[in-house]
């Protein structure tokens, strides 16, 4: 059957030449547009976060300016600020929907502001990696809120029980791999490459985390600042200095997780109406509530990734509609001319299904030929240009070629996946464009078709 179809294709090479040219152009164009689309969608939408942002909310804490009537001078000191913010925190924790809440400063995951720098292994200073790092308070339910998971056990709930270690840090698996080797991180020390005074002790290794919403998972580090439970004078004093200054400078936040069963939209609007006004204590107040997921989406948008995804999607769509229209028109006109041939085929016993399938296979074979030629062309192009990577503003280093990042970083899988996607969508368009003409051809009455001759 296939051999016959090949002969058939060759027999009308004039017209098929055109379809071949169209398919070749569309294949290459769609491939080049699909490549960034694939990378960006994988990174920003499909790759796992490494934690659970779905039911997490962020409260932006504000501090009244001193020139407004409501400002209370008697509350404008570290002691009072800490009391007031603690009261706000306990009111949030007391809400029935809230599972856990944690106080943080300016930097937390998807906060929009982040610090990144190079860290190295203290004992083997040649091992260096780029790290995105953020601070946390030990024992403040930080892990119960975000649900970063322990790499060894896959659990998040025990991490908050780990006792306070001065300058203790949690690192992600990838950072461990870069600096110490897999499974060898705990108990080791890291230090900044520019500041050798402090070193940080690794007290936990976490599953890989996507530190920025638009990017791949990378090296992320969480640094224990103070113990939130410890009420001893020194620790509480340090905490007071750190957190009250964050509150007074308007960059403190409270992050909390709600019950899975509560609807996000309803929760936000109820919260804004009923709870927000009650979260004003002394000079401390809460500006607004936002879901962590929407903050992540906003990050993706602000990086221009959403725009690029839209551009690429509309281009792919455009190319596909074009090819569908062209194939439809060409086959329609061709069937008119091939009526006699179809009549003969049917007269000698071809079924209607045979006729339709033959035309479908004809067009798919043309796509196969165009794809082979297209891949040869693309390989030349990619040899010089490389495949698309999106790394803008990246801080932590990417995970490498394991799962899931290998889908982008491994050139063979990357090329294969994009090619497969392109073949699938163009193939679907071909079937769509050929189906109607092919069905019409299959309805031909052999007697009528032959008589027309």
């Amino acid at each position, binding site marked *: 059957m296939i051999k016959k179809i090949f002969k058939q294709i060759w027999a009308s090479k004039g017209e098929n030449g055109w379809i071949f040219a*169209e398919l070749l152009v569309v294949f290459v164009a769609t491939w080049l547009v699909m490549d960034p689309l694939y990378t960006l969608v994988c990174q920003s939408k499909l790759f796992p976060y490494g934690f659970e942002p779905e039911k997490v909310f962020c409260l932006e804490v504000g501090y009244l300016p001193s020139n407004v009537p409501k400002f209370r001078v008697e509350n404008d000191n570290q002691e009072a600020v800490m009391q007031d913010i603690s009261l706000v925190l306990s009111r949030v924790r007391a809400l029935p929907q809230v599972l856990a809440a944690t106080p943080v400063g300016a930097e937390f995951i998807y906060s929009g502001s982040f610090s990144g720098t190079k860290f190295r292994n203290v004992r083997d200073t040649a091992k260096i990696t780029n790290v995105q790092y953020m601070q946390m308070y030990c024992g403040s339910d930080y892990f119960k809120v975000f649900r970063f998971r322990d790499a060894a056990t896959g659990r998040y709930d025990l991490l908050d029980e780990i006792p306070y270690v001065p300058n203790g840090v949690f690192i992600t698996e990838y950072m461990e791999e870069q600096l110490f080797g897999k499974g060898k991180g705990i108990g080791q020390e890291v230090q900044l490459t520019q500041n050798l005074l402090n070193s940080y002790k690794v007290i936990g290794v976490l599953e890989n985390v996507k530190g920025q919403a638009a990017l791949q998972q990378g090296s992320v580090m969480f640094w224990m600042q103070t113990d939130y439970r410890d009420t001893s004078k020194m620790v509480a004093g340090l905490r007071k200095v750190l957190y009250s200054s964050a509150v007074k400078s308007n960059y403190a936040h409270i992050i909390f997780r709600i019950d899975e069963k509560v609807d996000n939209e309803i929760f936000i609007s109820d919260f804004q109406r009923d709870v927000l006004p009650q979260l004003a204590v002394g000079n401390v107040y809460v*500006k607004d509530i936002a879901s962590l997921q929407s903050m992540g989406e906003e990050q993706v948008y602000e990086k*221009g990734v959403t725009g690029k995804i839209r551009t690429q999607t509309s281009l792919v769509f455009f190319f596909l509609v074009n090819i569908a229209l062209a194939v439809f028109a060409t086959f329609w006109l061709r069937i008119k001319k091939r009526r006699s041939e179809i009549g003969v085929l049917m007269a000698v016993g071809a079924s209607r299904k045979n006729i339709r399938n033959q035309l479908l296979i004809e067009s798919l074979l043309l796509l196969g030929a165009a794809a082979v030629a297209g891949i040869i062309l693309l390989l030349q192009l990619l040899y010089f240009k490389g495949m698309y990577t999106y790394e803008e503003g990246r801080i932590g280093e990417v995970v490498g070629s394991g799962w899931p990042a290998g889908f982008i970083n491994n050139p063979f899988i990357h090329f294969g996946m994009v090619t497969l996607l392109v073949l699938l969508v163009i193939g679907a368009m071909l079937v769509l464009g050929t189906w109607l003409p092919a069905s019409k051809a299959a309805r031909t009455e052999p007697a009528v078709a032959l008589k027309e001759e």
Partner: protein
Amino acid sequence: MIKYFKQSWQLIRQNPLFSGVYIAGTALAISMVMVYSILWYVRVADVAPESNRSRSLYLNYLKENQGNGDNWRSSAFSRYALEKILPMELLGQELEHVLLYQKNDRQKADKAYSLFLPQGISLTVYYATPSICDVFDYQFLHGDSFTEEDVTARANKVFITRSYARKLFGKEDAVGEVLTYQFKEYVVCGVIADVSQITSQAYANLWFPISEVSSYDQTEAGTWLIGGLKSILLARTKADLPKLQEAVHLNLKKLNREYSDRTFTIAGQPVEHFRSLFNRGVGEWEEVSESLYQVMLILLALLLVPAVNLSGVIASGMESRLEELGLRKAFGASKMELMGQVVAENLLLTLLGGGLGLLLSYSGVVFFSGWLLQLVSYTNSEFLMNATDFTVTPGMLFNGWIFLAALLVCLVLNLLSASLPVWFSLRKNIVDSLTVNKK
């Protein structure tokens, strides 16, 4: 020509499917190209209220380099820095107006303490010198802008948009009303027509006098040069732009001589409007040629892919007309004549498709401008997420440039798609053409 159009009309009626596909394909191609062109047009051309784009220069970032350049920081300017480097001596000559401003995006409502702010909507706030009304063509519906005297007297005045006046006060004429912003009361002095986010530079919800910026008073020497203010210079004519740029660079050189331990740079600024669209963050401009190259590539793909496809469609259509063309050839018609005939015939179809495509692109831009604008946005965060006010004004759509572009695209597409298949068909000799259907 008319004769061919008549014939073409006959062919359309005889072969509605072929014509339909052809027109649809053309319409699709034209609409994509036109959406792209319109979006670029509204981002580049002088469009109200940014009616002076072509003679504006923007100063946004100052970079402070310490030591050997490893240590640097970058932000906007302090008032002191701007007064040092702006060519104020040219004011009234080549320099028509100077705008100093601070613009804050994404101002969240302070819900616990504010009078009223709509849920989930963030505000964009301008703190500006009164010259903002000379630089941008804001349309005042009620009242007026604040004045130089208001800035000097630190008057608590504000002008707002019409829709914001309605939200806050339930009426359009809100002049004299009092609103609370960031715990402070302001008297509304004017209400302007809403500004579309498409003109993102002019866009805001609230406009306060620049004296409300707390650091505005610091003009002493020795204060920071890095600050929160930006500036727009409005030249008298477009031709004066280079002179202004030169003057700013000269002033910067003078300023740098005052510091021995650090240097200040402004990387390509003050920048013209067109170049400013390719801003990639802190004072870094993408090579415009590289971006334009990308734009050209997209436009080329948008034209080439449909052209090849339409060629295929025409080629299939030509088969059935070979007889007719062969006959004409036999009676002495030249190749060029026949080519002209087919191209002209297709032109009618292309023009029909083009008209349809233009309509499609208009409705696309009108209804989905917010979504579509991302396609031509090269900056990171110029448009706000979830923003709604991307109103498209008739002036942005119905103008000579857009129509001319549409016509041009039609002609190019027509020539590209029709000439090649016709050329191929005409190469066949007369006898073949005449017998093609009688095999």
